[in-house]
């Protein structure tokens, strides 16, 4: 499935976390995904401590050098060490993926909860706005927003987050519509609990699993989106490293320095496949039908 497709897990039947974790541990694909993500996260976090050259240090005597013992992944058009830029670039990519999905979840889930729980005109308005945003292709909306907000990594994250938000509204709303008719919610209402308490204590925990799965899969899409925006010059700005902007430069030196294009693409591919594998694994682990 594409990351922006909606996951479909019947609410109200989620397994205990330990049981889900056992199922996740038994899923080899998910473990591979988790390992890839952990590896790149560790690299990104430890970047300042690793014995690697300054990612922005240029060297006119080392321009476009092929991989060697000195520069394991070669150097770029300004003589900068590609391995170092790759490791620092991991920070930008992972940060963009997590922050933009954080924005989408932080705005999308509350709107979805309100829309599904209260229904009526509130639901009508939120649903129509959601449909409108879903009619605009994710990347085109992100490009337009990034263009009007101005090119920067922060604006790219905002643009990607806002573009991904409608999927979370629709997903949460759908889940809430099923959960709110459950007996325990009726019970909570009958004893006079406030709406905010019912949503927080009874609805949210029962719609959490599909949101978690969707968020994991959307991180994969967001990482590709950030790389795409940076590739177009609308994300991370030079000289700060990011995998997308490295590819943007590399495309001008394909015949002279093909290694410049090779490594950032492999890194994006691995991280995205990692999140996709983990997302698929989480979906299977949290799906009660897969018992």
């Amino acid at each position, binding site marked *: 499935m594409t990351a922006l497709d909606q996951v479909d897990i019947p609410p109200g039947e989620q397994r205990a976390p330990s049981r889900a974790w056992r199922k996740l541990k038994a899923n080899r694909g998910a473990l591979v995904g988790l390992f890839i993500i952990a590896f790149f996260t560790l690299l990104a976090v430890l970047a300042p401590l690793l014995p690697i050259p300054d990612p922005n240090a240029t060297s006119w005597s080392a321009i476009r050098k092929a991989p060697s013992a000195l520069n394991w992944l070669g150097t770029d058009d300004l003589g900068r060490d590609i391995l170092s830029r790759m490791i620092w670039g991991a920070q930008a990519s992972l940060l963009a993926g997590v922050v933009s999905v954080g924005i989408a979840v932080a705005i999308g889930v509350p709107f979805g909860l309100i829309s599904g729980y209260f229904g009526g005109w509130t639901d009508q308005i939120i649903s129509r706005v959601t449909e409108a*945003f879903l009619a*605009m292709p994710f990347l085109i909306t992100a*490009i337009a927003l990034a263009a009007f907000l101005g090119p920067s990594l922060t604006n790219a994250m905002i643009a990607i987050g806002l573009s991904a938000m409608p999927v979370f509204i629709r997903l949460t709303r759908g889940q809430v519509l099923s959960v709110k008719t459950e007996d325990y919610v009726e019970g909570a209402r009958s004893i006079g609990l406030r709406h905010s308490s019912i949503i927080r204590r009874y609805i949210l925990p029962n719609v959490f699993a599909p949101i978690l799965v969707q968020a994991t899969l959307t991180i994969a899409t967001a990482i590709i989106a950030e790389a795409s925006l940076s590739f177009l010059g609308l994300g991370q700005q030079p000289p700060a490293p990011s995998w997308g902007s490295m*590819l943007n430069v590399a495309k001008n030196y394909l015949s002279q320095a093909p290694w410049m*294009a090779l490594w950032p693409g492999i890194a*994006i591919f691995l991280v995205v496949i990692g999140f996709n594998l983990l997302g698929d694994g989480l979906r299977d682990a949290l799906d009660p039908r897969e018992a």
Partner: protein
Amino acid sequence: MYSYIGKRVLVAIPTLLIISIFVFSLQKLLPGDPVLALAGEDRDPQTIEYLREKYHLNDPVPVQYIRWVGSALQGDLGISLKTNQPVLKLIGDKLPVTIQLAVMSIAFAFVIGIPMGILAAVKKNTALDYIANVVALSGLSIPNFWLGIMLILLVSVKLGWLPASGYQPFFDDPLRSIQTMLMPAFVLGNALAATLMRHTRSAMLSVLSADYIRTARAKGVSEWAVVLQHTFRNAVLPIVTLSALLFGDLLAGAVLTEQIFTIPGFGKLIVDAVFTRDYAVVQGVVLCTAVGFIVMNLIADVFYVLLNPRMRAAL
């Protein structure tokens, strides 16, 4: 049937209205005063006031919006600052290029994705199924702009088999046109093929477990007749709907693909417009894309009803 289509069109109106508000609001996100940018070096108050009047920027925002929507409904999406041409004409000129790319990509995605999905479902839990799933997962995870770069490197730079960039109109030289579009279509169709494969497999699996399939097998119908005539015909419905939804992915993918292969299409238009700060063009492209997506959804809904006898009878 006509009343169904009418109802669907009516439902699309509020969606279009909200999209128009969003697209109009984009220009309000611009930092600074647009008039000062237009005036350039000339900061003469009279010139600034003249420009404000000319572009109706002294009017309240709702009035500006209504004027903008009114013009858009008459096909006036503004004038490109860069080329001084009407935005709609620019989009109209670029559209055939992107349509050719899209048609070739969809053809590729269908030819690869659907048979792969059918085979994976029929051979569930075999090596073939696992290979198809790995290929699909890779197709979804590979950034298409990187795939494009790698193909240029291998197929054009190293092997010299296909041109790395450029565009030839189809009716001028069909063979050359197809040649130049082969790689971009593969790049763009790759992720679509992966999505189609996964959905075809899933749709086929749900139909294959139905009672009437067991009955067909019990009657001695050949396995391929069961798969193609009984299963695929019933599994094709969700695939039709999905194909329309993939239209959005296709346009978004075209932005990057056209940029890499220097194809002068719809996608390259928006990127070029972003860098020349040609905001009317950016707004026009977003609006037209959204309208196109809604129309494709409408067509998919109508096809869904036409292909589904139960829904047809219910109308």
